[in-house]
């Protein structure tokens, strides 16, 4: 992952952790293990806002940032697009196995297990 991607991720982690919108200074302050210039953090927050991952709102004289959606919502979006079978995303991603009915799969797995027992004995 490149440095910019890594920064975006670290900053999103800060926004997801926070209960309230944060100013650029507050975000910098929470990235304790890094020594980042104020402008760097501002640039990355701006990029995140442009991509739609962060929302910014004015509070007094400074911009405050918050995550547009919760981490769980984004994880769900990723998974849904991966599990989607309706065609549009079919060409974008290739899934390992589409769904099979539980009983059918279990019957085959049992058969495989029995074969394994025979092979071992």
């Amino acid at each position, binding site marked *: 992952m490149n440095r910019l991607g890594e920064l975006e991720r670290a900053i999103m982690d800060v926004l997801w952790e926070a209960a309230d919108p944060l100013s650029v200074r507050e975000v910098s302050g929470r990235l304790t293990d890094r020594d980042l210039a104020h402008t760097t953090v501002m640039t990355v927050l701006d990029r995140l806002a442009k991509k739609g991952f962060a929302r910014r709102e004015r509070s007094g004289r400074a911009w405050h940032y918050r995550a547009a959606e919760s981490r769980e919502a984004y994880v*769900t*979006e990723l998974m849904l697009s991966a599990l989607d079978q309706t065609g549009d995303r079919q060409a*974008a*991603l290739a899934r390992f196995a589409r769904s099979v009915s539980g009983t059918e799969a279990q019957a*085959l797995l049992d058969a*495989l297990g029995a074969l394994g027992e025979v092979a071992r004995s």
Partner: protein
Amino acid sequence: MSAAVVILAAVAIVCIPAASALAHARWPRRSPAAAILLWQGLGLGWGLAAVGALLGLGAAGNQTGVLGAAFARLAVIARNGTSQPAMTAVAVVQLLCLAAGLTLLAVLCWILVAAFAAVAKARQRQRQLLNLLAHGDPKVPGALVVDHPAAAAYCLPGLRSAIVVSAGTLALLDAHELAAVLAHERAHLRERHDLVLLPFAALLRAFRWAGVARRAQSAVALLVEMHADDRALRHRPARELATALLRVGAAGGGAVPSGALAAAARTECDVTARVVRILRPAPGLCPASRALVGLAAATAATVPAILLVLPLR
């Protein structure tokens, strides 16, 4: 009507029942790679022949090949405009054929461009989300892990490709089964199976009402999976791949939104078919049969292409 137009029309018409027959045939499962090639030949051949036949009917005259004659005809129409002498019924039909051919050509080009754009956009979004959310895990070296309990494994093709595995899959499969999953997905990425699927998915989007487009798309999708299975089996034992497929397939069903049930019912037998094939492999086609399939694919694609550009006397 020239011989070229007759041949083009015949190819365009024959491609449809040929595709239906190929979708129902059993031999493609024995040599998926050869069958995929034949699907590509049929698809390309049908597109070129259908456009060529319509343009040829509209152009009437074959001195410079169908494409050349059509352009010559268009030039005449552009020069004369509406001030042509009274048109005969034949001339009207010819004009309609010309317009239909050009429309079909435009539609086919457009759906491909649109499909590329849609796929690029979906992948861009996936990359951005993975960048923010995914992490590595020593259990699946080289793959990205997303913390979600549903079982899913997939690959994100492209120049910056990635294999993605959910935390649910990590919990579900043992180390051997995970290695089989990775080998399968790596085959997809290495051989750019997404590029094989894209035109068929695009065709289905444009001709959703046509049963043959749907059958072609699902047949090619299944063949691509079977081909990746074969590649994975070069490095991994059959049993591990089969159990991985069944476990992921059985666990993944619960998370599919209810709207996709019809697709799930159809693909249900796909996983079973793959498992049966992995555990009881039929011998592949003999080299002579494979050569014959390759020849058929080449003929289906090149004959219409040649007739489009070269005159046939």
